[in-house]
């Protein structure tokens, strides 16, 4: 599959990130791990993934203990719409309605089976466009 998926985590999310990465490989996706060899905090990991998505397109996945620090940082990038997720319904809706390019998962919040379901919905759902685009244009005019 050609879809570009960038992944990153802080130190707290490292083991969880490796699980998600292995899961995506198993499903046939190639994953670019941007924090493979560094001990990052969530500011660093989120900046790396947000910049990669802005430059290369594709989708990003960020992991820290609660997913909230990464959410705050990723959304500070103009043109990035980042969703913090812990359930499958929000995963599907945010891709379809919000044209989300990055998701965050909290390694201390969501279990691995649910996280796998969230990730699959995120990478397989498509943005619906149409009336939703006005909201995306509005978000993208903000930072």
């Amino acid at each position, binding site marked *: 599959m050609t879809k570009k998926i960038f992944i990153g985590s802080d130190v707290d999310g490292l083991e969880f990130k490796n699980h998600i990465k292995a899961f995506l490989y198993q499903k046939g996706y190639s994953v670019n791990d941007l924090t493979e060899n560094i001990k990052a905090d*969530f500011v660093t990991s989120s900046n790396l993934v947000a910049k990669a998505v802005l430059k290369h397109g594709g989708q990003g996945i960020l992991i820290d*203990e609660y997913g909230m620090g990464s959410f*705050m*940082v990723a959304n*500070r990038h103009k043109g990035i719409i980042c969703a*913090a997720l812990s359930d499958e319904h929000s995963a599907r809706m945010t891709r379809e309605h919000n044209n989300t390019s990055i998701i965050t998962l909290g390694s201390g919040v969501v279990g691995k089976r649910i996280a796998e379901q969230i990730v699959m919905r995120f990478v397989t759902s498509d943005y619906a*466009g149409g009336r939703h685009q*006005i909201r995306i244009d509005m978000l993208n005019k903000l930072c």
Partner: protein
Amino acid sequence: MIISIGCDHIVTEIKDHVKQYLIDLGHSVIDVGTYDKIRTHYPIYGKLAAERVATKEADVGIIFCGTAIGITVAASKIKGVRAAVVKDVQTAKYAKKTLNANVIGMGGRVCGIGLIEHIIDEFLNAHYQETEENKKLIQQIDEMVKEDYSQDKGFFDEYLARWEQGDYKDES
């Protein structure tokens, strides 16, 4: 406390319920809308509610849309705001204690009223606990937004004009 609240048209009744809940708890509420079920756009209300917090007119903001994500993304792009999407009590407490979150978003089609009220109770009772590490992370988050859009009352007008012209039609 003074609390700004906002929502999109999907969950107006939930915002209205929370408004009364907060008033009953003794808080003052600034309700930035929306006020009815007529189709509108969540970034308008996420921005308005967050800006009331950024300008210190409100102490915290509480916002709602279907999943919380759209409206909370809008809030998180406002200078001076640290907004969290929450659907459990522990995350809300963490967001306040560690990241000094000043806005929380909840999904009216994801969370029930019992959970929403519980999250609000514990979020409002939590306190930021500063450490050197938290302080540095928060400073880095804050410095990422330079622009202040709060005085631009027609910030979204170009898109609303295009909406009126029918530029944003769903494919049938």
